């Protein structure tokens, strides 16, 4: 009765249950998996505390939940317990008969409800609807005792994950993540607020670098060298990097402007940078008919790698507390210059999108290969056409340089961020899972 390695199902089988009825296998676990990720991406966008670091944390725990729910019913899969910081042995299926789809549904529905417990009325309504419909879907054709045992196992796994998550230092987010006050140091290189929004006069999540990582040992495991020394001397490296941003943004091609917008991934207006990569991976599960075990393995590694990327990145942002291009350029080069993108309300170095994209590319390349070509439909519903990539690294490189085109990062933050992402992503790649 264990549903292991569900193979050979067409992409239609993974169609969201909430879309108009189409032919589908009622209790394909991958449908459960992809539906919850689709809803989670919406909830990230529509829940006020879900800035990129917070979103990455949720995707990390959802990934582990999905993986462990499937692994609990598959003796061929290695649990992440003992491999991830602080994760102790999880419940397993044991001798009882379990259904993987029902276990997955029970685990993910409880975990998503927990991480998005603070979402608004429409999110709560959608959560309830998704739970009700997927509960009904997975129950079809199952003996009551099998359903009961499966739901119990899934709920136990979720409870274990939630207890583990609640003590990682990132569970409580107040004031939408913004510190209540901030006094910039006298150092001219220090970050200063760049927004006229009152709430954003202090940096976002200044302590995020101390959140417990998943796979890497500590927040400073992949620490970076310092950025170029601050200088207003036109012959300095720092000035040169600022001038590069200035000149590039003054002469943007349409394609460069499109790239900047495609990877903008603003919080509260999109599913954020980690959500962008989750969307891609979730979409690939359906489009490429990936096996269940590969799917949950990929989503777990991706979530873990990106969550750690934000912890490492934020560790160095706080360490160096570097000012943004708009501050320097307005001060030194052109007082009227404005970047194309909204400057994020926190320190510049390194680039978060670069770090997380390199971590994502590292993980996805490890799972699906070096030359895995794909199309990215993330922003199709918002009117931006899909973009095609020959590899995950091509996409990650584009995500990195998009921040220079957008006028919100210097080149060093992008290049060093990419290096940091590679380093952090390798820890997720090295996890033992399907062996």
């Amino acid at each position, binding site marked *: 009765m264990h549903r292991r390695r569900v193979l050979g199902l067409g992409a239609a089988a993974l169609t969201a249950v909430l879309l108009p009825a189409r032919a589908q296998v009622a209790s394909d676990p991958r449908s459960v998996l992809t539906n919850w990720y689709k809803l989670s991406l919406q909830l990230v966008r529509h829940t006020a505390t879900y800035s990129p670091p917070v979103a990455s944390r949720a995707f990390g725990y959802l990934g582990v939940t999905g993986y462990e729910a499937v692994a609990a019913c598959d003796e061929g899969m290695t649990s992440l317990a003992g491999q991830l910081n602080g994760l102790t042995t999880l419940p397993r299926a044991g001798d009882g008969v379990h259904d993987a789809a029902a276990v997955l549904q029970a685990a993910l529905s409880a975990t998503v409800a927990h991480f998005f417990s603070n979402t608004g009325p*429409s999110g709560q309504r*959608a959560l309830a*609807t998704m739970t009700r419909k997927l509960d009904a879907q997975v129950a079809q054709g199952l003996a009551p005792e099998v359903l009961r045992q499966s739901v119990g196992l899934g709920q136990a796994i979720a409870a274990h994950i939630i207890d583990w998550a609640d003590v990682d230092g990132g569970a409580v987010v107040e004031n939408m993540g913004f510190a209540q006050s901030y006094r910039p140091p006298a150092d001219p290189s220090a970050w200063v607020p760049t927004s006229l929004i*009152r709430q954003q006069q202090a940096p976002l999540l200044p302590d995020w670098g101390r959140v417990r990582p998943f796979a890497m040992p500590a927040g400073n495991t992949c620490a970076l060298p310092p950025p170029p020394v601050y200088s207003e001397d036109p012959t300095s490296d720092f000035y040169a990097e600022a001038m590069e941003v200035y000149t590039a943004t003054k002469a943007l091609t349409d394609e460069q402007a499109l790239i900047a917008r495609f990877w903008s991934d603003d919080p*509260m207006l999109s599913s954020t940078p980690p959500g962008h990569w989750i969307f891609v991976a979730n979409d690939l599960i359906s489009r490429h008919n990936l096996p269940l075990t590969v799917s949950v393995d990929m989503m777990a590694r991706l979530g873990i790698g990106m969550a750690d990327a934000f912890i490492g990145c934020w560790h160095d942002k706080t360490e160096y507390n570097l000012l943004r291009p708009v501050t320097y350029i307005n001060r030194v080069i052109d007082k009227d210059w404005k970047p194309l993108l909204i400057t994020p309300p926190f320190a510049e170095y390194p680039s978060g999108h670069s770090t997380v994209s390199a971590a994502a590319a590292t993980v996805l390349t490890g799972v699906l290969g070096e030359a895995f070509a794909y199309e990215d439909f993330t922003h199709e519903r918002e009117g931006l056409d899909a973009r095609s990539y020959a590899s995950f690294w091509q996409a990650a490189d584009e995500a990195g340089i998009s921040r220079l085109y957008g006028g919100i990062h210097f080149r060093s933050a992008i290049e060093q961020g990419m290096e940091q992402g590679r380093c952090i992503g390798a820890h997720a790649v090295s996890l033992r899972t399907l062996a």
Partner: protein
Amino acid sequence: MIRALVLILLAAPAAAQTVPQFVEETTPAGLEHSFAGEWEYMVGGGVAAFDCNGDTLPDLALAGGTAPAALFLNQSARGGALAFTAVVSGIEMEGVTGTYPIDIDSDGITDLVLLRVGENVVMRGLGNCRFERANEDWGFDGGDAWSTAFAAMWEAGASLPTLAIGNYINQREEAYPWGSCTENWLHRPDGGGYGAPVALTPSHCALSMLFTDWNGSGRKSLRVSNDREYYEGGQEQMWHLEPGQPPRLYTEAEGWKRLRIWGMGIASTDLDADGYPEFYLTSMADNKLQRLVATGPDATPDYGDIAWARGVTAHRPFMGDDLRPSTGWHAQFADVNNDARADLFVAKGNVWEMPDFAMADPNNLLLQGADGVFVESAGTAGVASTLAARGAAVVDMNADGALDLVVVNRNGPAQIWRNAGVAGNWLKVALEQPGPNPTGIGAWVEVRTKDHLQRHETTSGGGHVSGIWGPQHFGLGDADRAEVRVIWPDGQVSDWAEVAANTVATISP
């Protein structure tokens, strides 16, 4: 030309800023009403303030959500305590989110537009506070949507006003409401009635609309404030409305700058009397106060945000220990202390158990000082209710020249406050013109006292599903006389007319 005048005329009046004292009289006034409902009524909750029986006192029509809408007859003694009596008027229908008063057929009797979850209904005023459905008689297609915004204006030569109606989420979308914004509609006159509504696409879940002459051109454009919670690829909008032409969005090439907020309400007035209105946009956390970056004949719709500089971000509760961000809804500029400077009221309230936003979220009353900076005064003024406010109206309900306040709360009692009086003098300006548009919607009213100029555009719409129909109120400070002139919708400019303070001045072309 007007810009030059500003430098001379903006000197502040001599009267010092005073905090008006409001007295809540909800219970003794007999205003017993609630806007109720679950998900489909998390937005909405409007009030229309207008005189329906010819006694010059504003009566109140309140949306009820799942409860029937209700009309309350104003029986306040002039200068005395507020008093209202519920009367059967014909508007008692369920599903009403918002109410706007307007004289659609220009017969001198105010009509009502009822925005609803379901079919919108236009109610013809019959006099003596009675109304009847007029959708069929006027050819008005009420549609079937979750309607949450309204604006009206008379296009040149039209016998009926053009009505813009903003719609929200697809109310039948249970699982994925995001991205399900339904079409906004433009109802334009066609013959003796209305033609089929024109879809204002793209539509992005509008919660407020306002026709405005934003650039002093004499032409009206339609501003739309949209809720970013539900749109995909959306932003704030402004539409061209040219005679005989289909509506057309302002574009980035024309200078329009993309802004994405939880847009919930629009208030406007010409704060600096330079000929160009400023716009206050309510949202969650920081609210926006927009002023044109550059004015003049070639002005483009490029707005800077001066909310922080002017002290009106109102981004979190100003009192209590709840430090979570605020949620703003109805906003209205009005001079509540009669010091000749527009103040700002903002209705506040959590959407619906959103734990990242303040639950105890007091309304704001921001009094403008001589330096143009607003100072929070709702606490000392006595209007800092922490019920879940939505719509509101700042209007003189007992004809004493001091503006009173009514607020509609979601799943809680509506509240009413009497302004117990302020020292400054005041003036009310009523516009009258023959034919269509009898009260001069679209006109600019200018009031001059000594070296101080106030300008306000006469509009129908905006706020959060709430509207006022009646004379415009201006504070005069210690001036005992004022000069008034009107720039009519057709461009005619009346002569300056001298009027005495503390009166209602009726101005005709």
